[in-house]
């Protein structure tokens, strides 16, 4: 109810603005999609299984038509010397960390967009170019984006990247959960290629059950935490690990959704458009009163 009223207000405010600038609002697009479906999908990443073959990196680039070397070159382990981040040239990367239990077995962690349940980018985007889709994917719309990069400021996982070297049509690049492939019944490219089944694709609810089961039956192998189950209000991608997540590159974020505080402040300032309208009335009143006072003084 509250949201509806707020939207109506914005519509009115927007109409005034659009009228002032001589633009038609007929083509106005709806607010961004932000669906949190019960049946949303996700991926469970078992970092204790991943062997760091980086085939997922190759498959991802291939699926998204990004330039890539041939798959044989991905056997090169020297890239693990430095921590890498997903960027505009690679939407997913694998990093390697030292294993606290078995020092000869490194821990490999695949990184990509976490596809939050309450995404900061969806909340922040000035034009609503980001959407949380029914299948759980957080996607970006090239037709709306103005390139302001506020999504990059907002993202708690520091995922979206930007094509800084392009003068025209620079894009925000991030994992799109292979939405074009899953639409057609295919698996996400990384899940499909993974040779050791470190990645499990399925309904998020089921994945949490599987993860809990795994932790229960292998208490020595896993720590008792599913990263992404509650972090920033939950994410579609979930991780299992044998050691503390902080040590393998995950930020410590708490369980509150990232956009929470900013949205409630934002809606508080505008609540039904009452505060701004009252301020207007108040100032108008002061203006009238002081003017009258001045006129009276002049008469005297």
């Amino acid at each position: 109810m509250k949201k509806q009223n707020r939207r109506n207000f914005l519509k009115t405010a927007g109409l005034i603005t659009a009228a002032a600038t001589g633009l038609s609002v007929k083509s106005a697009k709806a607010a961004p999609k932000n669906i949190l479906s019960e049946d949303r999908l996700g991926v469970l990443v078992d970092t204790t299984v991943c062997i760091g073959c980086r085939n997922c990196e190759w498959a991802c680039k291939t699926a998204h038509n990004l330039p890539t070397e041939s798959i044989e070159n991905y056997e090169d382990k020297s890239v693990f010397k430095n921590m890498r981040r997903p960027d505009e040239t690679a939407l997913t990367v694998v990093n390697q960390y030292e294993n606290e239990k078995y020092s000869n077995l490194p821990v490999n962690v695949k990184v990509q967009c976490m596809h939050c349940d309450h995404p900061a980018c969806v909340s922040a985007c000035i034009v609503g170019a980001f959407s949380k889709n029914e299948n759980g994917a957080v996607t970006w719309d090239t037709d709306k984006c103005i390139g302001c990069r506020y999504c990059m400021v907002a993202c708690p996982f520091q995922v979206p990247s930007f094509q800084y070297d392009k003068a025209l049509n620079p894009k925000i690049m991030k994992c799109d959960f292979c939405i074009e492939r899953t639409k057609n019944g295919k698996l996400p490219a990384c899940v499909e290629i993974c040779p050791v089944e470190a990645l499990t694709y399925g309904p998020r609810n089921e994945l949490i059950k599987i993860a809990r089961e795994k932790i229960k039956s292998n208490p020595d192998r896993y720590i008792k935490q599913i990263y992404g189950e509650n972090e920033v209000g939950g994410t579609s991608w979930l991780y299992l690990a044998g050691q503390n997540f902080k040590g393998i590159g995950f930020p410590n974020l708490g369980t509150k959704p990232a956009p929470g505080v900013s949205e409630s402040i934002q809606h508080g300032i505008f609540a039904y458009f009452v505060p701004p309208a009252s301020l207007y009335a108040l100032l108008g009143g002061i203006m009238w009163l002081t003017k009258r006072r001045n006129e009276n003084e002049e008469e005297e």
Partner: protein
Amino acid sequence: MHEHLRPSPLKHKFFTPGVIVLAVLALNGLVFLSARFFFGIGSVTNLNNQYPWGLWIGVDVAAGVALAAGGFTSAALGHIMHRGRFHSIVRPALLTAMLGYTFVAIGVFVDIGRWYYIWHPLLMWNGNSALFEVGICVMMYVTVLYIEFLPVVTERFIGNIRLKGILTFLNKPAEKILIILDNALGKTIFIFIILGVVLSTLHQSSLGTLMIIAGPKMHPLWQTPILPLLFLLSAISVGFPMVIFESMLASRSFKTKPEMDVLSPLGYTVAPLLGLYLAFKLGDMFIRETFVYLNEFNTASIMFTIEIVVGIVIPLRMFLSKKVLQTPSLLFTASTLVIFGVLLNRINNFIVAYTPPYSFGSYFPSFGEISVTVGFFALLVLIYRVIVLNFPVISRPDESFIIKTKYTIKG
């Protein structure tokens, strides 16, 4: 209003050595700016995936908006509270705000990757986004500022249209249109004046909401849920110091006496406003117990301390002193410190406080970025100069009058 205090175009030559320096700086900025349009943002700036926002957003946009706050604070004082003695500061402050916001808009235009889509927020709304609110409010406020400035234009041209040659026949109709416009504005301008103040309070505060969503990426010394309030309070307290600062600079540039009989009483209002800002800033620090971070010796703690001590505490003490308020050089120094404090606060909030979880280095603006920012500032000053030399903006006492009398007030 007395004849001798009416705003009028200043009589002064345009070119001075200072103007030439500014022109060179502006040109230098434009060269780097053109590179941004041909080769992308990455070719000019030091921005990257870790630091998506830098000098242009922190200074050109965020600090620009704050430092243009003189427009709405003096409109509130002069027009809404009808303090007649301050009427003479409203127009210069309005002009600064109009130019300031114009350059804020230009700043956004060059910083966004897809500048040709800058109109998108008008049609594509996201009511959850603080940036959307800032964007819409700023667009509306710029329009309002231009409307508020129109009377200056009509005043300049009514009775002064002298088109030559084949355009002579246009003189009378143009005059008529101006008179109609002037009458219409005279009756409706109060709507826009109030609207301008409301829009200002809205977006000045929402500018503070912007960084809240960055959550733990922002240093706890600055990250607080009351950021919108702090932004609003600091904008209100920097408004009059900015007016004083400009008025004194203009006096120096145009070789007139500083208008101390208006600026001193204006200075009286600064201390309570600045004090309120300091109270909230320190109160927030003690409630959230963030003072523990001041024990660490690093960029954040140093910048925070400078911001509080040099930017708020020292000028607050100065504005409380009668001697400062009545001495031009001290009043100027105190005002400059407040401006410095707010400028630094915006830089701190948007650049220094921003610490991404995975960074491969820190951000410092490139020579190109600094050139563009400096160039825009130089351009703004030059346009200001052109306008005050040609339009009735600044009120200067007529040289034939020696004024020490109190002004009468016209409602």
